[in-house]
């Protein structure tokens, strides 16, 4: 394992994050604050409680998940696509590195960045709502697993993408609808029965439900099922990464 190289990639990626602090940090925090104002204060004031939790507090886990998932994907996909686009990817291929080390460097940095942003939003939320975390350890486990798995997913998108449009395609057409319909801002039990059944096919429901359980001890689906879902998603992403590693798909001709 070329640890020095992994550290070099990781540091390089984190340096870019801090170089573009405004885009990578302030903008997600600002949009999360806007959600608190619009959903939490304006609309939330007309909604009593959901599952025994004030609406403002109820949306916090969903909001963190929403941001963390989209940030992990966009950071990881852009992180690996950019070197492909400008041609510096060949330097990675000619270095004494295997694909796994490249993945750890890039996806690791993207996961770290999204986790930072998630924590910042959590801290921000304390300024807007009264919040208590029932299971802190479970919260950390869910946060870390979500950051890592979605960073891996973003990395795969970045390897697959042949242009900037494709880079945006899956996050925009698949992830955003799944996350919005995954119960970020509502409980699945608030939906009509048909939609409740349909929602059960949305994997994001399990992640948000599990994360919300870590906060309030209430969930749409059993916690074990949520853990299984995030575990299965992580395993699926690792499987695709292993496939790329073995075949050199979209990497080496």
């Amino acid at each position: 394992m070329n640890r020095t190289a992994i550290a070099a990639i990781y540091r390089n990626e984190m340096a870019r994050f801090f170089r573009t602090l405004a885009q990578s940090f302030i903008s997600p925090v600002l949009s999360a604050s806007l959600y608190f104002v619009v959903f939490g204060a304006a609309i939330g004031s007309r909604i009593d409680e959901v599952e025994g939790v004030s609406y403002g507090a109820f949306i916090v886990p969903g909001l963190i998940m929403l941001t963390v998932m989209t940030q992990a994907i966009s950071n990881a996909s852009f992180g690996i696509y950019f070197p492909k686009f400008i041609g510096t990817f060949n330097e990675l291929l000619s270095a004494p590195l295997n694909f796994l080390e490249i993945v750890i460097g890039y996806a690791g940095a993207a996961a770290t960045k999204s986790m930072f942003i998630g924590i910042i939003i959590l801290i921000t939320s304390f300024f807007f709502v009264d919040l208590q975390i029932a299971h802190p350890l479970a919260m950390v486990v869910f946060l870390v697993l979500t950051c890592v798995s979605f960073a891996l997913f973003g990395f795969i998108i970045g390897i697959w993408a042949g242009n900037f449009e494709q880079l945006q395609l899956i996050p925009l057409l698949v992830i955003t609808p799944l996350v919005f319909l995954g119960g970020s801002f509502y409980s699945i039990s608030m939906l009509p029965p048909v939609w409740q059944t349909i929602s059960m096919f949305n994997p994001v429901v399990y992640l948000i439900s599990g994360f919300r359980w870590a906060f309030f001890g209430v969930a749409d689906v059993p916690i074990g099922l949520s853990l299984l879902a995030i575990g299965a998603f992580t395993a699926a992403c690792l499987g695709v990464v292993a496939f790329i590693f073995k075949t050199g798909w979209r990497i080496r001709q």
Partner: protein
Amino acid sequence: MPTILSIKNLRKSYKGGFEALKDVSLDIEEGEIIALLGPNGAGKTTLISTICGITMPTSGTVTVAGYDIITGFRAARSMIGLVPQEIALEPFEKVINSVRFSRGLFGKPRMDGVVEDVLKRLSLWDKRNAQILELSGGMKRRVLIAKALAHEPRVLFLDEPTAGVDVELRKDMWGIVEQLRADGVTTVLTTHYIEEAEAIADRVGVINKGEILLVEDKDKLMARMGKKQLEVQLTAQLGAIPDALSAYDLTLGDGGHTLIYSYDTKSERTGITRLLKDVADAGLSLRDVVTRQSSLEDIFVTLVSEKGERDQ
């Protein structure tokens, strides 16, 4: 000198069936500068990319200091530095960070002294804190070389390093390569500037359509294939070569004002003395005498066209 890079029966075919490399075999000795000459699309970049790990070989083997590029890729690649043909650099990165990153990527611990030395050698030290996008094209090429040298490679590949570079910078680059040779670095250079190979290479390889047509010591190649021509410029115009000179292999040039005599530089007797005497005896008066030696370019064109004719 021991062999540092050994290429055996290397083939590379792409999906569409195009064969970019056809059974290439080549041994490169430690410390030499070898220039691979060939027209665009000859397979020069594919050869370098395959050795460096950017493309996968279809068959054949390549070893660097005994390490196979597939099974021993870590050891093999850590000894190789690659300066790509295209300028590919992260535009917003600082010069020094970019070079440090390359060193780290090759698994070498951070050593600021080494990076400083490389940057100074390439006259980049003053620009170390500049963003890449602020640099001129020539400076960016220097950064590419600095990145390739950051991990102290034993073999340096320069893929068309002076394409689109002005004369002054080109001479600077040659100076850098000479300096590297003094440090014991082996340099493999691809170029289609024959002048470049002529100026700095020890050996020349000619590659065309994925095949190596010839690899030879540059001076020997020049001597073997380098024909010299003697041009005898006359004061009067000739309609045909006089009978008295028919024994010589002469042609008429410059509308009958010049007699051109080709001779072999290697032979003991070039026949020049006798020719000039016979020219004088034939009553022709001379205005000037000029000799010309064919360049590597002429040799290259001859080789490539001969091969083309043979294939037809």
